C-alpha cells in the first residue's frame, strides 16, 4: 500500500465573499507518494501556492481535507509535528530578511537533529551563494539560493518548494536539479515542487500533477503519463467521434488529429481495424500534454458557461 506524504480530498479554498468570492482551490484531490519527486504544474493563479500554503498550515481550507504524513497541518499541535518534518521555500523567497549565513544559522537552531552543516556547505558552494551579503543587497536569484540552502540542509522528510527556480541562472538551475536528485531523494525524502517551468520539472520529477483553475486535470507517474499520451494523425471513412481515451479531436480538410490520454496501442488497433490509415503517431512531451490539457479544460469551461 502506497504511503502518501501529502494527500488532499476535495479540497476547497475560497477568498472573499459574495460576488467577489474567488475559488483559488476547487475540489482538489492530490496524492503525493512518499519518496517521490512530485511536480505540481499549473498556469498562474492555478492554485498551486494556495495548496502549498494549506499544506504548510499558513491557510485554512474552506472545505475538504489536507493531510501531511497523515496529520492535519492546519491545527496545532498536529501542525507543529508536520512542520518538524517539512523544509519549505516560499514563493516570494522572503525568509526572515537575513543574510544567507544568518538565515542558515537561525534555521539550523530549529532543526539540530536533522540539520547537516556539510550539506549546507555543499549547497552554498555549488550554488555559489554569497554567505555574508546583506539581505537588501541580495539578488532575486541569491535569495532563492539562500532559501533553498536553508531548506535542503534541514534534511527534512518532505521538501516543499514553491517555484524554486525563480531568478536562477541556467548553471545554478542545473546544480539545483542535480542536488535535489542526488542528495535529497537518495535519502528517501519526498520533494514536492510547484512550477510552470515544465522543462525543469520533466528532468527530475517522477510524479506530476497538472492544475488549472483550482482543479487537478491530471495526476500520476510521469512515465505512465508520457506512455499514455499520444498524438495520432489519421484519415479514413469511419473515424471515432469520441470516447474516454480521446482528449481532443481536430479535423482539417486532409486528416483528423486525435490526442489520446490512455491506451494508445488499443486506440491504434481499433483505428486500423475500422479501416483508418494512421499517417502519424507520436508520443507527446510534457509541455505538449500540459498545453493540450489546459486548452481542453478552457474550451470545456467556455462551452459549459
Amino acid at each position, binding site marked *: 500500500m502506497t504511503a502518501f506524504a501529502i494527500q488532499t480530498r476535495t479540497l476547497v479554498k475560497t*477568498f472573499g465573499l459574495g460576488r467577489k468570492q474567488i475559488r483559488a482551490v476547487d475540489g482538489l484531490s492530490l496524492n503525493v507518494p512518499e519518496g517521490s519527486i512530485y511536480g505540481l504544474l499549473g498556469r498562474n493563479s492555478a492554485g498551486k501556492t494556495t495548496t502549498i*500554503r494549506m499544506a*504548510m*498550515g*499558513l*491557510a*485554512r481550507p474552506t472545505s475538504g481535507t489536507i493531510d501531511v504524513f497523515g496529520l492535519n497541518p*492546519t491545527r*496545532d*499541535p498536529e*501542525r*507543529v*509535528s508536520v*512542520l*518538524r518534518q*517539512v523544509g*519549505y521555500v*516560499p514563493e516570494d523567497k*522572503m*525568509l*526572515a*530578511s*537575513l543574510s544567507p*549565513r544568518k538565515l*542558515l*544559522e*537561525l534555521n*539550523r*537552531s*530549529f*532543526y*539540530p*537533529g536533522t*540539520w547537516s*552543516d556539510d550539506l*549546507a*556547505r555543499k549547497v*552554498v*558552494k555549488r550554488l555559489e551563494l554569497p*554567505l*555574508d551579503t546583506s539581505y537588501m543587497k541580495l539578488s532575486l536569484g541569491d535569495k532563492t539560493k539562500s532559501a533553498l540552502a536553508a531548506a535542503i540542509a534541514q534534511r527534512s522528510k518532505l521538501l516543499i518548494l514553491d517555484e524554486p527556480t525563480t531568478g536562477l541562472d541556467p548553471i545554478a538551475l542545473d546544480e539545483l536539479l542535480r542536488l535535489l536528485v542526488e542528495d535529497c531523494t537518495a535519502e528517501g525524502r519526498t520533494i514536492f515542487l510547484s512550477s510552470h517551468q515544465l522543462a525543469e520539472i520533466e528532468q527530475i520529477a517522477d510524479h506530476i500533477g497538472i492544475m488549472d483553475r483550482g482543479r487537478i486535470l491530471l495526476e500520476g507517474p510521469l512515465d505512465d503519463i508520457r506512455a499514455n499520451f499520444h498524438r495520432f494523425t489519421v484519415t479514413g471513412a469511419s473515424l471515432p467521434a469520441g470516447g474516454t481515451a480521446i482528449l481532443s479531436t481536430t479535423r482539417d480538410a486532409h486528416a483528423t488529429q486525435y490526442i489520446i490520454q490512455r491506451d494508445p496501442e488499443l486506440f491504434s488497433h481499433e483505428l486500423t481495424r475500422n479501416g483508418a490509415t494512421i499517417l502519424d503517431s507520436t508520443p507527446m512531451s510534457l509541455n505538449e500534454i500540459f498545453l493540450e490539457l489546459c486548452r481542453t479544460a478552457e474550451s470545456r469551461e467556455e462551452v459549459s458557461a
Partner: protein
Amino acid sequence: MNRSASLHAILIVSALTILPPILFGIWFVIREKRKAAALEASAPSFSAQDTAAPSFRSKAGAFFFRCFDVSQRAYLRRQHFVLAGGLLLTWIFFVYFSSGLMSQYVSAYAAQQPLPLRVWYSYLFHISNGAATYGIFTFGAAGLAVGELGPASAIGRFLRTRPLSRSFLFWIRVGSVLSTVIFSLVLAAGASFILLLMLYGPVWKHLNNGTQPTAAFIANARSQPGPSVDDILESSRFGAGHFAWALQTSIPRLFLSIITTQSFFFSLVILLAMLPIRSGRKKVTFVAVSVYVFFMLYIIYIVVGSGVSPDLARICFFYVRPGPPPPYIFALVPIVGSAALLGLASNFSNRNDG
C-alpha cells in the same frame, strides 16, 4: 549642601545620561570590526556553536530550558534581542525618571521651600508627568512584538513555518517584550531612586520644616465643606500645594500605575494588530485607524488622569500627577483589562492564517 550638591547632581546625572550610549557605541564598533576580521579570515562555514546540545550556565537555566523542545529553545534564545532592547529602554526610562533631580528643575519649584521638599516634588512631578513619553515607548515596544508575530513581516512568516505552535509564538513574544518593558521600568525606577539617595539623601524624611501644614491638617481640610483645599494649596504662592502633593504621593503606587497603565496600552496595541484584517488595502487603512485609536485613547487617559475625572482616574488606577494615590485594589482594573485584551489577541493570532 546646596551649591556643591547641585554641581554634583549636574555632573552625575549628565555622566549617567551621556556615558552609556558612548560606551555602547565603542563596544558596537569594536564588535563589528572583530566580526569583519573573523569573516575575512574564515572560509564559508557556520559558527562553531553546537546548537544541538546547548549548554547552560546555571542549574535554574537548565531546568527552565528542559521544559521546552529544541525548536522552542531556539525561539526562546532568539528573545535575547529583546533583552538587549530592554537595556536601552532601561537607560531611557532612567534618564527620564532622574531628570527631576537636575538642579535647574529642582530650583524651578517654590524657591522659598527647603531643598528636600523641592527635590522630592521635582522628582515625583517628572516621573508622574512622563505619561506621553512612556506611551511612545510602549507603542514602539508593542510594534516590536507584533513585528515577529504577524504574517506581514518576513521574519513572522519564517517563524510561522518553523515547528512552533501559534500560541507559543504569541505568548513568548508578547510575554518577553512586555516583561522587558516592565522590568525596564522597575530597574530604571530603582536606579533613579538610588541616584536620588546618592545625591540628596532620604529627602522625604525632611519635608516638613515646621512652617508647613501637616498631612493630618490637609486630610481634615478635605473633609470639611467650603473651598477645595487643593485649590487653596495650588494657588499658594509659597508652594504649600507642592508640599501637600509631595506628602500625599505614594511612590510605589506611582510606579505601579505606570506599569499597569503601560501594560494595558501595550495589550491594546497587540490586540489592534492581531485583528483579522486580510485585504491589503483595508490593512493599510486599518493600521492608520489603529494608530489613531491608540493615541486618542492615550490622550483621554492623560486628560482623565490629570484631574478631569478624578473618580474614573482612581478606578482605572491612572496616576499621572503628584497627589493622593488611588487604592491598590484598583490596580486590578488595568491588570484584568490587559489580560483580557491579550487573551483576545491570542485568539485572533491563532486564527490569523487565512
